[in-house]
């Protein structure tokens, strides 16, 4: 059955039951400007930017208002009748509704007026404001206002640079009091720590007395803020957004697998921040603070170059030493350690390598579990636990078992992928050092790297394409953002080279070969297509 439609500017727009005009327009990619509305939050209708003209049903008169307008010829104010405009974010769509947005001169004037009021007391902060380049005030000025300031008085001054908590700074002068941050905290996080104080010109956002903005999703308040009022201490003054490019990646913080945009500067190949990417089925519109700040892992604590017995060397030497060391060892004594922090491609390459070389003992490592909640965070802090099980065919044995097997002497050589271990670090290092040989292809300096005989640097998730399966069993692809750092090469490539150095061959040469060969997760119920606006790209609802 075809979807019911209504008209915006004469164009038929489909809508779902319960949609407001703005929601239906947003889905169809039609631009109705808004500040306070957000698809993931309740409707506040306080900014009045989305006002549209709704034609009366046939046979009914339009609701008209008497307004005063300056008659230029007479030089005095006269009463004029204008249709009452309504906020599109609030009006539910009914059958045969006809809305005028761009074709109505009243709407154009209303948008101009609202924009003018919003900018009336706005500080001239663009040169120092982080939001410049992704600021709705700038974009809507250009689209809907285009005139200069009519007020010649000093603007109202309010507190600037107020620290709300460990992560967020608030600037009341830039704030348009849209209350997106207030609604986010109370509706999504269920922690109503922010609220609005005063009214009119003096309106500003405050933190509840005696508290700080310190829940687990504070950076989302910065993300939903359409202007530069809320800025993150982590990102402020670090980079200008027009120099940044965005790669669609998957957050590596936990098994939820939130979709993210990783923003990097291609000139210096440096990663600057995460932003959430909308995905109705995984993370809706949000990400947690831990995940948002996990972008820093791309540049922190990395293994810069290959090491043999603690001494720096070339990747070639590392590869050849590894190949030589595992070649003629009794197969039952060799363990292969997969990593829940690495992509399906990396793990599948290692699983295939194990098959080629005849090693049957598969184990898995990753980070230790942490705190979860019912909003987004998952206690499993590894992005690809389910993926490892998928590509290995069955659940590999846990890391604890590996330590036992090393203790008992049944495992003497280990070919490992990964960096972190889920047990206490010092104990793990001590146990691993008992091995005759430990080759680690890893990204970060951790217990595995410390105990390694041969350590070969691998690319992090940001430096190569990878597939990660989240706790719900969905396989998601993360794109490449920057070029490999220092001597790092993609882990799957290193594994291929190790196998080839032993004399065996691998059935693939390139990443796409691995991707077509590796197993895909079982078909689940058809996914609802993510509600992204038709003008794709990296604009998320909150911008």
């Amino acid at each position: 059955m075809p979807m019911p439609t209504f008209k915006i500017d004469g164009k038929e727009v489909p809508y779902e039951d319960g949609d407001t005009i703005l929601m239906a327009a947003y889905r169809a990619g039609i631009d109705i400007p808004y500040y306070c509305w957000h698809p993931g939050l309740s409707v506040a209708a306080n900014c009045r930017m989305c006002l549209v003209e709704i034609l009366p049903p046939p046979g009914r008169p339009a609701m008209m208002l008497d307004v005063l307008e300056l008659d230029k010829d007479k030089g005095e104010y006269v009463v004029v009748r204008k249709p009452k405009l309504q906020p599109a974010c609030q009006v539910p769509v009914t059958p045969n509704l006809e809305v005028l947005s761009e074709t109505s001169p009243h709407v154009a004037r209303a948008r101009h007026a609202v924009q003018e009021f919003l900018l009336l007391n706005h500080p001239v902060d663009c040169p120092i404001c982080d939001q410049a380049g992704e600021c709705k005030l700038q974009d809507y000025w250009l689209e809907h206002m285009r005139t200069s300031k009519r007020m010649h008085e000093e603007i109202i001054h309010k507190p600037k640079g107020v620290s709300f908590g460990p992560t967020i700074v608030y600037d009341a002068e830039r704030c348009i009091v849209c209350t997106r941050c207030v609604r986010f905290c109370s509706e999504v996080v269920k922690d109503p720590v922010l609220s609005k104080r005063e009214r009119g010109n003096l309106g500003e956002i405050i933190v509840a007395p005696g508290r700080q903005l310190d829940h687990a999703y504070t950076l989302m308040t910065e993300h939903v803020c359409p202007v530069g009022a809320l800025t993150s201490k982590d990102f402020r003054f670090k980079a200008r957004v027009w120099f940044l490019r965005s790669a669609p990646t998957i957050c590596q913080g936990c098994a939820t697998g939130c979709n993210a945009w990783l923003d990097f500067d291609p000139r210096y190949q440096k990663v600057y921040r995460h932003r959430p990417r909308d995905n109705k089925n995984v993370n809706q519109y949000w990400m947690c603070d831990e995940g948002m700040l996990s972008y820093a892992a791309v540049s922190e604590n990395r293994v810069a170059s290959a090491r043999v017995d603690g001494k720096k060397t070339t990747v070639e030497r590392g590869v050849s030493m590894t190949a030589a060391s595992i070649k003629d060892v009794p197969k039952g004594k060799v363990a292969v350690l997969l990593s829940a922090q690495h992509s399906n491609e990396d793990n599948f390459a290692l699983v295939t390598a194990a098959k080629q070389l005849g090693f049957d003992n598969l184990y898995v490592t990753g980070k230790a579990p942490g705190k979860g909640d019912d909003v987004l965070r998952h206690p499993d802090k590894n992005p690809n636990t389910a993926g490892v099980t998928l590509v290995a065919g069955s659940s590999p044995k846990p890391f604890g078992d590996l330590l036992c097997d090393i203790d008992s002497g049944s495992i003497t050589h280990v070919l490992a992928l990964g960096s972190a271990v889920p047990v206490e670090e010092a104990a793990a290092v001590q146990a691993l050092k008992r091995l005759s040989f430990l080759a680690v292809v890893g990204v970060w300096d951790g217990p595995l790297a410390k105990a390694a005989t041969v350590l070969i640097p691998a690319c992090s998730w940001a430096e190569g394409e990878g597939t990660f399966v989240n706790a719900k069993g969905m396989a998601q692809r993360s794109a490449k953002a920057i070029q490999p750092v220092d001597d790092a090469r993609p882990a799957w490539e290193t594994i291929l080279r190790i196998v080839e150095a032993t004399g065996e061959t691998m059935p693939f040469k390139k990443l796409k070969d691995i991707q077509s060969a590796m197993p895909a997760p079982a078909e689940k119920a058809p996914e609802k297509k993510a509600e992204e606006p038709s003008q794709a790209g990296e604009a998320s609802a909150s911008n």
Partner: protein
Amino acid sequence: MEPLDLEVDDSSLELPSDPMQLMMGPSHPAMHGTVRIVLDLSGETVLKADVQIGYLHRGFEKSCERGTWNQVFPYVDRCNYSSPMLNNVGYALAVEKLCGLTVPERCQYYRVIMGELARIADHLVCNAAMAMELGAFTPFLWWTRAREMIYDIFEEETGARVTHSFARIGGMADPPNKHFKDAVRAALPKVLAANAEGVSLLQNNRIFMDRTMGVSPISAADAIALSWTGPCLRSAGVPYDVRKASPYLVYDRFDFDVPVGTTGDNYDRFMVRVEEITQSARIIEQALDQMPDDGPVNVDDPRFVFPDKDDVYTTIEATIRHFKIVMEGVPVPKGEAYGYTEAANGELGFYIVSDGSGTPYRVRIRPPSFAIVGGLSKLITGQMIPDIIPTFGSLNMIGGECDH
């Protein structure tokens, strides 16, 4: 004394003779702006000529795709660096065509006057260089001095003698100075006098005439087939001038003639340029009389033109406006356009493709001298080496434009 070889019969001598290959350029005083001509010679006669350009190729078109629309102006300046104002105006008009903007009248007259001054400067230096290469140093010095007067005017107006980057999309960077008209009116007669005086030395000079008359002629049909435009085409007898055929700016309000040659030889090309200087001066005089003394120079569209700097520092709206124009570029609507003007060398065209953003998708410059130098090999084949010098000089190849 009797000639020594009286007894020798030339026809009985079988001297082996292959064509000699001579590389002329790229580093050569007469190869204006680096061009190399690989000549196959039989004695002094050119049997085959392969003109190799590209020594000044700087990736202009690729560089345009990496900035904003207004950031192209310094690039176009450096294309035809003898008459940069004409390049500025040509590019601005092409983009304004795509945007659907018409600049105010005062700006149109301003652009015309500055453009015609640039044209005079270009023709002066082209003729001067051509004459100097034939040995006539004096006109070079006189005409370069005359060009300095024009450069002084440019310096007063734009701040730079040569690479002004003065036009903008939607107008000019600054309005004309208070004494602009007086300065031009004062300089123009002196420039014309210098032109006339220099020409008087060359016009009926035996050496000059022998070296340029009848040398490298071209027929009208050949010139058109070779895509020639400008003074080179007009010297062949084709009265095609973009300012008359498809008038732009306010050219349709002026009374001026288009000098046309007959045989398309070097002499005609030289004289066409000389006469064009006089015609340009006529245009300038009329424009100065007609140009309004006040009024806006920029179009009244906040998306294209900067606000006052005072407002930028004190109001948020002006800051945003400034920010959008600088950081994002002016919003040229999606589509393509070909804007063409009569530059000093001929039809200067800009084919621009926009994807709707502030960065150009493709900026193609159609350099008039590219097509003209394409015909050079045809012109010099069969001529002698010394003929190459005035021929090449009369074509007015500007390396920056030809190689872009």
